[in-house]
């Protein structure tokens, strides 16, 4: 019997039950996140139905290069996070910490590229709501597309920032040897959150960047 006994909270009959509860709780949280973004996806779907041409025209302002690079960055980061969890289960904690650090740096890269993109939009006056001041296109619905773009990618970027912070803590704890092949629930749950943020981007990318191609 190892120190894992100390991780079992009193209200649980067994450590397995505790782990199951933790996972279920995380999936319930992920469900709420899906509903949060779901409302915005619904708004996008509705306004795209009403203004299909304006949406296509407005999407020409998107920087497809940055969007595509960001997609690859996030997918690769997800691979590293998944590898980190597998390595911890195989008692390779230092390597796992390295993978988490790489994933965190990729996340920061994503945010940096997003910042560059936003600054380009600001320079070109491709801004949400009443600040939309471009000469082309000036169609009903064009500024709506840009507003939805900033709303959804901005909310995603906030989630990304939190996820980077979570990864930083997990990388530190993994490197410090706080996780074992048996006890690594925080790492598992944090990894799930990172993958959720990636899944959201997987849908945002074609919605905003690939319309006009």
């Amino acid at each position, binding site marked *: 019997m190892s120190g894992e006994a100390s991780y079992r909270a009193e209200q*649980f009959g*067994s450590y397995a039950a505790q782990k199951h509860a933790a996972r279920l709780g995380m*999936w319930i949280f*992920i469900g709420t996140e899906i509903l949060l973004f779901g409302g915005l996806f*619904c708004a996008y779907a509705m306004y795209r139905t009403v203004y299909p*041409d*304006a949406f296509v025209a407005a999407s020409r302002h998107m920087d497809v290069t940055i969007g595509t690079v960001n997609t690859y960055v996030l997918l690769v980061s997800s691979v590293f996070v998944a590898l980190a969890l597998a390595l911890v289960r195989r008692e390779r904690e230092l390597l796992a910490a390295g993978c988490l650090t790489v994933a965190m740096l990729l996340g920061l890269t994503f945010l940096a590229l997003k910042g560059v993109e936003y600054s380009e939009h600001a320079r070109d006056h491709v801004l949400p709501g009443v600040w939309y001041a471009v000469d082309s296109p*000036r169609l009903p619905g064009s500024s709506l597309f840009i507003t939805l773009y900033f709303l959804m990618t901005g909310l995603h970027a906030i989630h990304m920032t939190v996820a980077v912070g979570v990864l930083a803590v997990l990388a530190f704890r993994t490197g410090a040897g706080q996780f074992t092949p048996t006890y690594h629930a925080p790492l598992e749950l944090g990894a799930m959150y990172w993958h959720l943020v990636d899944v959201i981007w997987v849908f945002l990318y074609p919605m905003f960047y690939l319309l006009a*191609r």
Partner: protein
Amino acid sequence: MAHDPNVVEAEETGPGIGLLLLVGLALLILATATFLVSGLHLGAWHTPVAFAFAVAKASLIILIFMELGYHGGGSRFVFGISVFFVLLLISFVVLDVDTRFRPTVPPGPHPVLEGKGSPADVYQTPTQTTGPRGQER
């Protein structure tokens, strides 16, 4: 022997490293395919194809990376219900808007015409300086 709750049961291993790398490669291939296919002239199929690629990538991430394929039924139920209600919401809203009598939809789709004198230009920059009764604005 009675079950000792402090004894941790055999740890499940989850997906192997080989599978994770394979899924990662598949994701990168799908991302590349998404980008390349988006440049084709698919007409009305553009959106469904893009959505299919996104669902494929998301499914791999959720089932393998997030290990939903390895977790119990409760987690799958929660996830499935969330997705179901979001799809229900989007479906009915789009159905509502798409089947309305067109004049009741706020300024409907305009042709992508721009520049001076185009319908879009008139809409965006009203030139009238007097009201309907001839008074100055």
